[in-house]
C-alpha cells in the first residue's frame, strides 16, 4: 500500500510530537510509531527540563550554555548549545501555556530545582534551573504534546515499524514500514522524513531504557550509508536500581540525597569536592565503579555488579512524598523498602546515547565531515546528534533537546515542503525491505534471536561499558562481527502474520547489532578519555588529537571512520574539574 504525506515523522516521543505539532500547522503530516504515542519513553523521564528562568535565584542562558559545553567535555558544538539554552525559556513557557502542570513556588511561579552539573556564574556552585512536574516531567510533556497533535489532526499510524528509507542519491523520498497488526509492508512517499526514534540502551545488559529503545532510526540510516556521529559516547546513569537498571532520578540527589559506600562514607567528597553528589553523571558513575573495584561496595566483593547506597533517609517523608512520589513507590514496588527508612541500593545503568544521526541546528541530516545535507531527511531527539551533549549529557538537557530541536526541525520542515514536489515512489522501492522480511519468515529452520541478543548485551556491558581498554574492545568488535554473521541464519519462529511480536524482535535485534558494532568500533578508535568515554589505556583527554567528532560509516561488515570538526567558537577548552 502506498501513502502520500508532505511530512512523515517516525517516532512519537517528545521530539517527534513537537516536530509533528509544528509541521502539521503547515503541511499534511503523519506520525509513524511502533508503539502508541503516549507510550513513548519520553514519558519515563522523571526529573525536569532546565531553563534559565531565574524564578528562584539569579540565572542566565549563557551560564546554562557554558555548563552544557563543559558538561559535554568540550565536544559540544557551542553555537548549538547557545541556541538550546536561549530557546529553553520560550520552550518552557510554550509547554506551560499548553497546559503542562509544573510545580509552583509559594508565589505561584514555576518552581525550579538543582540538577547535576548545572551551576551559577560559570561553575561557582549549584543553581536551581530544572523546571519540573513532580517526578513525572516527561510524562506531562508527552501528554501535553500528544493532545496538541490530536488537535492539529496529525494522522497517527500506530504500531508501524519502519524498516527502510527510500532514497535517490542524497534526497530522501519516504520510508518503508511494516504494519505490525497485519504484517503488511507500507510505502510512505514524503517530501520530508524526520527520525525521532529515541535511544538504543537495549544494546546493554543493564539499562534504564524501555524494551522499544532499539535505535531503529539510526540503524536504518546506517544501512543507507549515512555515517553516525560520536557513537562511542554512551551515558551510564549513576543510580539505577540494583539488578534491574530502572532509574532512580537524579532529582533524589537534587533534593539532597547522598551516595555512600560500605563504610557510610560520602565518597563523592573525594572525587568532586565542589559539586559532590551533583557532579555530572559520567564522573559520578566512574567514581561509583572505582569504589566498587576498591572493595568499598556494599558487598565488598569487587564484582562488577556490586552496588552502593543512595541515602535519602534524612530528607524526611514529607519531601519524599511531595517532591519525589514516584521514587517512593518505585522503591516499595521493586525493592520492598521505604526510602524514608532505608537507603536505596543502586549501581550505574546504561541510560542515554549522546551520539546518533548527525544533524545541523535545523535537524537536517548531514552525511559527511563537510556538513553536506541529505535533502528531505531530518532527525531530532536522542537518535540525533546536533551535538549539544558532546561527550556527556547534563541531566534535564534531554527533555530540553527534544522540545527545542523537535520544534526547530518541525518549523524548518514546514518551510521546506512548500518548496518541493511530492516525490514519486513505486512498489519497487520496497524491494530490499521485502526480501529482508521474506528471508526472516521463509519458514526454514534457524535459531531464535534471543540468545544472540543476550550475548550482545552482556558483551557490550562488560567490554564497552564504563571503563574501556583496547584489547577488550577489539575482542568486542570481533565477537559482534560473529554475532552479526549468526544473525543471518535467525528465522522468525512464529509463522502468524497478525501482530507477530517475534518478527518485531528480530528486526530490532538486527538494528541493535549494527549499532553495537558501530559503537564498539568508534570507541576502539578514540584513543583518549573524554566525558562518558573512559579508556584505562588512555586516561587523559587529548585535545590535540581528539577534539573532533567521530563519523562512523557502516559499509557491509566494515566500519569506516572519519571525523568532523567541533565548534569551539565561544569558550576555549579547559580541563574539566568540579
Amino acid at each position, binding site marked *: 500500500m502506498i501513502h502520500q504525506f508532505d511530512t512523515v515523522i517516525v517516532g512519537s516521543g517528545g521530539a517527534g510530537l513537537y516536530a509533528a505539532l509544528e509541521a502539521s500547522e503547515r503541511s499534511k503530516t503523519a506520525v509513524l510509531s511502533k508503539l502508541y504515542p503516549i507510550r513513548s519513553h519520553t514519558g519515563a523521564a522523571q526529573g525536569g527540563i532546565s531553563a534559565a528562568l531565574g524564578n528562584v535565584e539569579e540565572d542566565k542562558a549563557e551560564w546554562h550554555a557554558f555548563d552544557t559545553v563543559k558538561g559535554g567535555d568540550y565536544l559540544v558544538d557551542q553555537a548549538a548549545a547557545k541556541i538550546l539554552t536561549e530557546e529553553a525559556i520560550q520552550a518552557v513557557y510554550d509547554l506551560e501555556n499548553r497546559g503542562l502542570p509544573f*510545580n*509552583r513556588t509559594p508565589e505561584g511561579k514555576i518552581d525550579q530545582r538543582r540538577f547535576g552539573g548545572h551551576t551559577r556564574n560559570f561553575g561557582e556552585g549549584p543553581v536551581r534551573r530544572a523546571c519540573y512536574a513532580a517526578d513525572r516531567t516527561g510524562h*506531562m510533556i508527552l*501528554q501535553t504534546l500528544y493532545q496538541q497533535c490530536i488537535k492539529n489532526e496529525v494522522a497517527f499510524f500506530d504500531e508501524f515499524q519502519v524498516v527502510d528509507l527510500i532514497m535517490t542519491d542524497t534526497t530522501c523520498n519516504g520510508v518503508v514500514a511494516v504494519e505490525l497488526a497485519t504484517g503488511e509492508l507500507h510505502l510512505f512517499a514524503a517530501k520530508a522524513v524526520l527520525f525521532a526514534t529515541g535511544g538504543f540502551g537495549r544494546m546493554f545488559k543493564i539499562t534504564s531504557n*524501555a524494551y522499544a529503545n532499539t535505535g531503529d532510526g539510526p540503524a536504518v540510516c546506517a544501512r543507507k550509508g549515512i555515517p553516525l556521529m560520536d557513537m562511542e559516547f554512551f551515558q551510564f546513569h549513576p543510580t539505577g536500581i540494583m539488578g534491574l537498571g530502572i532509574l532512580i532520578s537524579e532529582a533524589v540527589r537534587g533534593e539532597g540525597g547522598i551516595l555512600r559506600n560500605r563504610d557510610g562514607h560520602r565518597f563523592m567528597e573525594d572525587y568532586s569536592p565542589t559539586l559532590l553528589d551533583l557532579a555530572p553523571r559520567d564522573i559520578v558513575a566512574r567514581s561509583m565503579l572505582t569504589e566498587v573495584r576498591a572493595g568499598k561496595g556494599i558487598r565488598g566483593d569487587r564484582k562488577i555488579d556490586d552496588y552502593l547506597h543512595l541515602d535519602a533517609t534524612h530528607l524526611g517523608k514529607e519531601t519524599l512524598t511531595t517532591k519525589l512520589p514516584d521514587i517512593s513507590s518505585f522503591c516499595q*514496588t521493586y525493592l520492598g523498602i521505604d526510602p524514608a527508612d532505608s537507603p536505596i541500593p543502586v549501581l550505574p545503568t546504561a541510560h542515554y546515547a549522546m551520539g546518533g544521526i548527525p544533524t545541523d541546528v535545523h535537524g537536517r541530516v548531514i552525511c559527511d565531515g563537510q556538513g553536506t545535507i541529505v535533502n528531505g531527511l531530518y532527525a531530532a531527539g536522542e537518535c540525533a546528534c546536533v551535538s549539544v551533549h558532546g561527550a556527556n549529557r547534563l541531566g534535564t538537557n534531554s527533555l530540553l533537546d527534544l522540545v527545542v530541536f523537535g520544534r526547530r526541525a518541525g518549523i524548518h520542515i514546514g518551510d521546506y515542503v512548500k518548496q518541493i514536489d511530492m516525490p514519486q515512489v513505486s512498489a519497487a522501492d520496497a524491494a530490499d525491505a521485502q526480501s529482508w522480511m521474506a528471508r526472516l519468515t521463509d519458514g526454514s529452520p534457524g535459531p531464535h534471536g534471543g540468545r544472540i541478543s543476550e550475548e550482545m548485551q552482556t558483551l557490550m556491558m562488560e567490554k564497552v561499558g564504563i571503563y574501556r581498554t583496547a584489547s577488550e574492545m577489539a575482542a568486542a568488535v570481533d565477537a559482534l562481527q560473529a554475532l552479526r554473521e549468526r544473525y543471518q541464519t535467525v528465522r522468525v519462529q512464529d509463522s502468524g502474520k*497478525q*501482530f507477530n511480536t517475534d518478527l518485531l524482535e528480530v528486526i530490532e535485534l538486527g538494528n541493535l547489532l549494527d549499532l553495537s558494532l558501530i559503537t564498539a568500533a568508534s570507541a576502539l578508535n578514540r584513543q583518549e578519555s573524554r566525558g562518558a568515554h573512559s579508556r584505562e589505556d588512555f586516561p587523559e583527554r587529548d585535545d590535540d588529537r581528539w577534539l573532533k567528532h567521530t563519523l562512523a560509516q557502516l559499509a557491509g561488515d566494515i566500519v569506516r571512520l572519519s571525523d568532523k570538526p567541533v565548534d569551539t567558537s565561544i569558550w576555549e577548552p579547559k580541563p574539566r574539574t568540579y
Partner: protein
Amino acid sequence: MKNIDITLKVWRQDGPRDRGRFETYEARNISTDMSFLEMLDVVNEELTLKGEAPIAFDHDCREGICGMCGAVVNGRPHGPERGTTLCQLHMRHFRSGDTIAIEPFRAMAFKVIKDLAVDRSPLDNLIAAGGYISVNTGGAQDANALPVPQENANLAMDAAQCIGCGACVAACPNASAMLFVGAKVSHLALLPQGRPEAAQRAINMVKCMDELGFGNCTNETECEVECPKEISITNIARLNREYLKASLLSPFK
C-alpha cells in the same frame, strides 16, 4: 528467593473476529523475584521453542509509566496489588500450585487485537474531542504572568498522572470511561490556561464517550480501586460539576 509452579489459564484469540478461548499452560520453576511479565516471557520462550505462537501482550517500559501493559489477572485489571501496573506485579505475590486466569481488558469500546492485546485508541478519540488547550501559543506570554497556586497545580498534577492504560474502563461494570474523561477535564479545568474552554470540553468529551460505546457512570467506584495511578473519583465529581454548569449556563450544547 524461591521457585514456584503455577498453572495459567490464558485467553487466546487470533484476531478481532476470532471467537477466542482459554488455553492452559503450566509454568514451572518460576522465581518469585520475577515480575509477572517476565514470567510470561519465560512461558513465551518455551512456546516459541515448541513451535507454538507466543502469547501476545502489550508492554514497554516495565516501570509503570508508559501505560502500555495491562491484562485482567484473576478478575482484576493489573492484578491484585493496589496502585501498580501489571509490569509492577511480582511473582512473590503468588504461591506454588496457584491457578492464574489472564484475560484481556474487556469493553465494548476496546476490540481485542490478539490474545491479551487490545485496541485502546478510543481513548485517543476522547482526547481528540477536546482534551487539550487550543490557545495559540505563537508568542507565548511569560508564564509567570499567570501565577498558579501550588495547591491547584497539585490537584491538576494528580489528575494529569493518568497514563491512559484503560484499567478504569476494564474495571467498570458498565465499561465507562468517566474516570479517564474526569481526569482530563479536571487537569485542564484546574489551570487558568484551561478555564476558557472548560465548558465546551466537558460537553464534547462526554458526548464522544457515549458515541464510542463506553457506558455510563453508576458510582461503582471500581475504577478508583484499580487505577494504577490511584486517580481519585473526585475527578468524576468535578467532571459532573463542569458538565452540569456547562449544560445549564453556557451557550454550548
